[in-house]
Every structure is written in structure tokens, then in C-alpha cells.
């Protein structure tokens, strides 16, 4: 079973600060997906990164896939209270129907 380790598990910062969360594995993934989950709701896809070294930007969020396709990071610039949530990374190994492995998530709280 492939494992995805996310760090930190919990992060509480002030509005306007920058932050980075990490998703690491010893295994190679075909792609990594990032989801955000709010209380009482299901996870919602933010982005998919596919190519080693790929960088994708979604407004104030920057996602990077490691060159070796074993790790990924999410950087948020000037965090807002609306960024509060649980951030999950998920790796796709072989594209099979059961191919997504989820990390345990980073709980992010942005204090106004």
C-alpha cells in the first residue's frame, strides 16, 4: 500500500500570512490531486498535477509537483479566512478504478 504523508497536520495562522503544506511519499505517482474539504461537506477538487516539476496557480494558491513525482506542495499567499479547511492530497498510481491514495490531510485555520 502506498502512503502519502501530509505535513503539518494542523496549522493556524493570521490573515495575510503565507504558508506551505506538503505531501510526501516514497512512491512515484502518475498524478497528484489536491482537494479542500469544509466541515459537513465532501472534498472538492482544487487541482491535478501530472508532470514532474509542474507548477499550477489558482489565484493565491500555487501547487507544485516534485521532479521525481513523489511529492507535492501547496503554497498559499496572503491567506484569507475563506481558505480555512482541510486540505487533502491524493495520488493516482496506475489509473485503475481504485487507484487514488489519500493523505490524512492538513487542517488549516486562518484567523481574521
Amino acid at each position, binding site marked *: *500500500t502506498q502512503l502519502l504523508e501530509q505535513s503539518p497536520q494542523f496549522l493556524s495562522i493570521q490573515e495575510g500570512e503565507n504558508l506551505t503544506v506538503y505531501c510526501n511519499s516514497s512512491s512515484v505517482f502518475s*498524478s497528484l*490531486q489536491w482537494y479542500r474539504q469544509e466541515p459537513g461537506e*465532501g472534498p472538492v477538487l482544487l487541482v491535478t498535477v*501530472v508532470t514532474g516539476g509542474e507548477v499550477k496557480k489558482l489565484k493565491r494558491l500555487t501547487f507544485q509537483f516534485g521532479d521525481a513525482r513523489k511529492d507535492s506542495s501547496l503554497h498559499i499567499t496572503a491567506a484569507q479566512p475563506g481558505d480555512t479547511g482541510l486540505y487533502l492530497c491524493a495520488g493516482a498510481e496506475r*489509473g485503475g*478504478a481504485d*487507484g487514488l491514495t489519500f493523505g*490524512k490531510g492538513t487542517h488549516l485555520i486562518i484567523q481574521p
Partner: protein
Amino acid sequence: DAGITQSPRHKVTETGTPVTLRCHQTENHRYMYWYRQDPGHGLRLIHYSYGVKDTDKGEVSDGYSVSRSKTEDFLLTLESATSSQTSVYFCAISEAVSYNSPLHFGNGTRLTVT
């Protein structure tokens, strides 16, 4: 938003009773999944379906069964509920199986087994 409805949203049941959770989609997606989410464990796959009457086991399938008699409905049954099955259950759907296909999740069912 993907049209996924999970029912019930909340349920409390007693140990030893059977429980069925329902997932209904209006997207006509072929692939459907049941996950459970627990503190310290993240999302873990219970069962999945790749078509009508085609299902397979996931990582944590013991004590669970599924059925898919129509494209739009995927049922998860706890044959004899135990306290260890207290969890939040999420249904997800996917249009295709490829390394970059996203999952669309329902809003979950919170199940408490007493």
C-alpha cells in the same frame, strides 16, 4: 456541482443491526465509490463500482457489502453494525478512470453505532 445525493445524512443505530446507506447521482458517471473518513486515518476506500452490477473491494471492505442495480444508485450495507464502523461515509463518482480523473464527492453520511 456534481449531482450526488447521500441519504440519510445522519443516522444512529445499535450494534448488531443492519444499515444501508444510499448514494444517488444524476451525472450518469460510470464509476462510483464508497469511502469512510476517520480522524487519524483520512479517507479509506471501502468498495467501488465500475458499472451496473460490477463491484470490487477496496482497502477496508470487511463488514460491508455493496450493490449497484442502476447506474445512478450505489448502496452500501453494513451487515451487522459494530462500534468500529462509527464514521463519516462519503460517496464519490468519476466519469472516467485515468490518472487525472477527478472524484466528485457527496456531502457524507455521519453514522453512529451505539
